[in-house]
């Protein structure tokens, strides 16, 4: 592939071999993971033979067709699926997902905003902090500071029902960011946002990423978003979900917004697009 100096595309199979040697800075590692939804006659293999890893302070995006198993994968990493349905090995900072979750290492933004209807926006954002056991760190920001950063100043006392779709999604986002986790799992967190708000959220996410040690796994449908934010883009195929390609994105950081207009950027995007088309 011509001029792909900053691009490394590796076959899923080949990367499996090399990554068998665990790296010290590894945060998330999936080995030969297979996940089944449902039981008995209804059982459906959602993902199969998935190998993946996320290093410290890395941002890894997952792209793939609707229904290929992205959300399922995130839930598995977060330890939210019943043990019986997950086969293979998943480790988060050297621990099982369950343990990692219990150590408060993981935070997650769900695909559809998950808010408590009986709590105001502000108290939805503080909910995990209120209940986090064994947590001693005080958050860097107050809830209203965090809400201001996601553009929801003045909405603190509203109830979720009184918000627009995008506003609800930003409340979910603010809640996950408040936790300052080691591993942040995001399932299409900016899907309901317009481009400008989305760009603001990107900046906000990168600002947090820069000042902390957070590793991020981001599910997105926007290739531009995936490339702009990530160190690596994982392309998944469907039925069942497998890792089809892993594309390293080596643009130096901090990245400027006009990077998106560069030919390199377009080339990576094209590369991913081709890969996606080949891996329906």
């Amino acid at each position, binding site marked *: *592939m011509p001029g792909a100096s900053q691009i490394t*595309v590796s*076959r899923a199979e080949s990367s499996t071999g090399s990554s068998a040697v665990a790296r010290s800075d590894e945060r998330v590692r999936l080995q030969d993971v297979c996940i*089944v939804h*449902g*039981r*008995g006659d209804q*059982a*459906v*293999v959602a993902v199969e033979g998935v190998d993946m890893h996320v290093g410290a302070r890395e941002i890894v995006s997952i792209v793939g*067709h609707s*229904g290929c198993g992205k959300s399922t994968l995130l839930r598995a990493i977060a330890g939210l699926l019943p043990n*019986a349905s997950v086969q293979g090995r998943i480790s988060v900072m050297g621990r099982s997902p369950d343990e990692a979750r219990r150590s408060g290492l993981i935070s997650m933004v769900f695909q559809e905003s998950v808010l408590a209807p009986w709590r105001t926006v502000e108290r939805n954002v503080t909910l995990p902090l209120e209940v986090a056991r064994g947590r001693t760190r005080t958050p860097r920001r107050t809830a209203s500071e965090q809400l201001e950063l996601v553009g929801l100043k003045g909405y603190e006392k509203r109830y979720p029902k009184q918000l627009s779709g995008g506003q609800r999604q930003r409340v979910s986002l603010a809640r996950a960011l408040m936790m300052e986790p080691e591993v942040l799992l995001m399932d299409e967190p900016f899907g309901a946002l317009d481009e400008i708000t989305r760009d603001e959220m990107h900046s906000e996410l990168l600002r947090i990423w820069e000042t902390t040690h957070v590793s991020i796994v981001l599910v997105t449908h926007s290739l531009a978003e995936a490339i702009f934010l990530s160190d690596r883009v994982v392309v998944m*195929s*469907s*039925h*069942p979900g497998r890792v*089809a*390609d892993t594309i390293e994105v080596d643009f130096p950081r901090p990245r400027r917004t006009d990077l998106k207009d560069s030919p390199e950027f377009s080339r990576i995007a094209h590369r991913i697009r*081709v*890969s996606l*088309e*080949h*891996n*329906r």
Partner: protein
Amino acid sequence: MTTAAAPTTSVAEPPVRAEIPPAARAGLLLRVFRITRSWLVLGSAVVLWQVVVEVFGIAPYILPAPSEMIASFADNAGLFLDGLLMTTLMSLGGFGVALVVGVALAVLMARSALFEELVYPFLNIVRVMPTVAVAPLLIIWFGRNALPIIICSFLIAVFPILVDVAHGLTSVDEDLVSVMKLANASELSILLHVRIPNALPYLFSSFRVAAPGAVVGALLGEFIGARRGLGYLITVYSAQLNTAAVFVLALLSCLVGIVFFNVCVWLERIVVPWRTVVR
């Protein structure tokens, strides 16, 4: 670099089905145990009861031993089973009417706040009104037949059904109602296709209260004036100070309640499979 020649059909393939190893299925013995364990616990309770009565020498006129009760039942099996049948029928009648009337009233309440406001005081009155106070009225109005008994049963069973179903009918997804309205669906269609399915888990939940309630109501009805049924037999044997028989009859009443209850729970699993219990 990519997997070669992956099929590029425009339509996604149907999902792959997984094979679950048979080991994951519960063994037959385990399943038998699961089905019977609540009866096992009840059985142990009975044994414990017998032991307590014998060890502490509790007098039979206070708390008869299960063995005495079994003897009493054996002596009067025909009579008691006839009572059981009657009470079961009366409870079923009361429950059936409560189901129909409760759902109907709940629908009216879900349609109109005014109706709710006007009807609740009356319902409260009929619910709280002590049967002894209105017993002569009930018998004089409805005759010396099954009707007053069914009415008593109905009055207790209707309340939980009404309240829970009204709750279920009004806590539907507003947007789903909007989808229906956009299709120019009639209120009846919205009721049938959105509100009622949404209220079904609430209905079945209410059965857990209404089913034993219907039995209690039938018993009360039989106390005030009947010639058959467990409630009537209880008054007769109680006047004869036959505590063992009274307890057998009371437990037969409970049996009706438990069977009713379990039928409802079983129906619930079949009728509302989409309700997931989050523990």
